[in-house]
């Protein structure tokens, strides 16, 4: 078991090293940061001075070594745009993204699982067919279209929810939360819904497929034969057995939500890490871009590692292979 984990950790390290190299390469290939940092009247001497202070004149490997040294300590330098510590900026933005992801995960589960069970059991009902058709929209429409449509329906036409921003936050021990005020909930609702639509569809379809399969198995038939109430069969016996793969997928998807909330965050001007990344791209704010890529890689690598270890714990066959 220990060697297995050690091997996995080693792989994770290799992935992180590769990502950090790619992130670092950004420094050399994405525009000229100095141009964005100085006004149009800056003299050549000004530019040169800034290049020197930023270390942009050093050879490639010297710069890379410096980058790695700092990255390992969790330091990604100073944002070219805001002049603040990148690590600090990410730490400041993370609560917004995590809360958004949390709420959208709840929406995804809250809608996806019951609808999946329902459509799995009532295969032929017209409601099921309608739900399935609508759910297709969730997968096929691009996120920004969904977001803009929701803004037009709920903010512009009905005027019941704010179109953008993160209002009503409360500071709780360094964590800015949206969960304690009505305004906070009002502003998180639309972006969370937008972010969750794809997940709802996926979970719904996954649960439905699993349900269909399980309903055909013998133990459900036996349960029916024993005269157990229908609800008990559906929700207790059948649903429980569908959840294992569903949970795995959800785990992986939460990583994806954190990493790729950027479109939703841009549409709703949600002040999370995704929006910060997009703003950084506009400005060629390389330290932020590099740190963000490393951060996302870390999220994925960690989640994968945990999932791998869980598989190992759950599935005895993996352990048996270890013996050979």
């Amino acid at each position, binding site marked *: 078991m220990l060697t297995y984990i050690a091997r996995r950790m080693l792989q994770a390290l290799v992935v992180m090293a590769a990502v950090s190299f790619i992130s670092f390469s950004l420094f050399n290939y994405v525009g000229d940061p100095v141009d964005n940092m100085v006004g*149009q*009247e800056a003299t050549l001497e000004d530019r040169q001075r800034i290049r020197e202070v930023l270390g942009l004149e050093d050879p490639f490997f010297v710069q890379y070594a410096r980058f790695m040294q700092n990255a390992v300590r969790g330091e990604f330098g100073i944002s070219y745009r805001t*002049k603040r510590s990148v690590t600090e900026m990410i730490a400041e933005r993370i609560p917004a993204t995590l809360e958004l992801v949390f709420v959208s995960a709840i929406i995804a589960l809250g809608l996806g699982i019951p609808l999946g069970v329902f459509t799995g059991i009532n295969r032929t009902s017209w409601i099921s067919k309608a739900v399935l058709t609508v759910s297709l929209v969730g997968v096929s429409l691009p996120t920004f279209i969904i977001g803009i449509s929701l803004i037009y329906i709920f*903010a512009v036409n009905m005027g019941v929810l704010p179109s953008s921003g993160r209002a009503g936050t409360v500071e709780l021990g360094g964590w800015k939360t949206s969960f304690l005020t009505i305004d906070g909930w009002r502003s998180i609702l639309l972006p969370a819904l937008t972010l969750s639509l794809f997940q709802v569809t996926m979970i719904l379809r996954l649960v439905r497929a699993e349900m269909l399969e399980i309903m055909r198995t013998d133990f459900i038939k036996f349960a029916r034969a024993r005269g157990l109430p229908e609800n008990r069969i559906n929700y207790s016996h059948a649903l429980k057995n569908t959840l294992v793969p569903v949970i795995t997928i959800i785990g992986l998807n939460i990583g994806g939500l954190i990493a790729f909330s950027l479109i939703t965050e841009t549409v709703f001007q949600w002040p999370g890490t995704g929006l910060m990344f997009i703003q950084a791209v506009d400005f060629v704010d390389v330290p932020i871009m590099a740190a963000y890529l490393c951060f996302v890689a870390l999220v994925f690598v960690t989640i994968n590692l945990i999932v791998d270890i869980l598989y190992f714990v759950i599935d005895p066959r993996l352990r048996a292979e270890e013996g050979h």
Partner: protein
Amino acid sequence: MRIRAIALAAMMSTTMFVGFAEAENVLRWTSQGDALTLDPMGQNEGPTNSMNGQIYEPLLKRDREMVLEAGLAESWKPIGTTGWEFKLRKGVKFHDGADFTAEDVAFSITRAQAKSSDFKEQVKSIKEVKIVDDHTVQFITDGPNPILPNEVTSLYIMDKGWAEKHNVVEPQDFAAGEETYAVRNANGTGPFMVEQRLPDELTVLVKNPNWWGNASAEHNIDKIEYRPIKNAATRVAALLSGEVDFVLDPPLQDLKRIDAQDNLKTITVNQIRTIFFGMDQGVDELRNSDVKGKNPFKDKRVREAFYRSLDVEAIKRVVMEGLSIPAGIITSPGVHGFTKELDKRRPFDPAAAKKLLADAGYPDGFTVQLDCPNNRYNNDEKICQAAVAMLAKIGVTVKLDAIPKSQHFPKIKNRVSDFYMLGWGVPTLDSHYVFSYLFHSKGSWNGTGFANAKVDELTDTFAVETDLAKRDKQIAEAWSIVKDEIVYLPIHHQVIGWGMSTKLDLPILPNDSPQFRWAKLN
């Protein structure tokens, strides 16, 4: 179902509650990007200067017609050829209560001259700031500087004591990479004071109750809330839904839609910014062309052929939806030296253009690369695409390279572009700014390689000429030379549009910088 109904009711009631609770006038506005810093010498950039200009004040301001008016200085006059004297306004207080005196002016100018300041060029001519008394200062210049009053309009005055107390005597230094106290805190003399500053998220300014201008104040704003919204559709949605009262930069194609709403309006003005193409006529061979061994742009006939092939009226109609003013020179109305006569274009004439090309030895045209930004000017990439099609009609094959501004501008500055788009605004509102950067052989943005001894001489002369009639003549002469030489291909002067609630009364300015001291909410 019932829970949802209750939730919805709760939401609606909070909306109404918010509506009732505000007896004071709060102006909410948005644009795509935030100010970079509140340090008034940290960055010389439009949105940054605009935000800081609500909080800080310069010695001289501009009125609605962009004419100089008194700011922190009540009057100003040249002292011979050695400089300018400013009489300062009395009884002015900084936001923290400190008195505004000549000391602060001297301090601020010195600060603007510091190594880390982004305004060095604008104060280069000032050798010394002499404090005559508490309310009189003299700027002793390095030779005569007739446009100095124009140059001080974006130099904001800081409090010496405050700067010393908070260790921000030196402007924020980009290279040192430190966030100083002045980046998120400010202590100006202006009509509004900073209440809250969350970069990229929210900036709240409140009315300065002790502003010297309050007695004759035109605004009735108690509070300004600024939230940048990056996405254009969301920005417009925020205006349509009434969450903001003012959008500085709605996309041009949405202006009609905004106007169609009963509670919204748009106002447009031609901006002081001209869009044009530059052609490298200095190098011996173009970098990306099939013409080898010579540079077709060196031939004035080729430049004129390009000029005559561009149908700027069509660009205005089709690409700009009417929101542009075709240009004959590369500076806009409102800039000193501009005349209607100069702004007349040579007529659009593709047949003549074809003949000019043939006369120059390119009957079948040639290929050339056009470098274009895709996120800087209104419809920049689309204008370039239109130009490609127009040049194709006279046989010139244009390869278009449209890229983000952060990659486009270095090409011009590093002199590696054969043919490029550029836009130029003129903060000093004087032609000298255009000539020194774009036409002078040493101009830092002159990517054309154009070098003309007479133009250089005139540029250097009217920089220091104090006889205004003589100076005007020199400027006119310089313009006529460069217009005749077809150094650049002028396209149009940009038109900007602001979208706002009908409740808001805010005059639009050609420099695209809102002045909330004139804002009124009804």
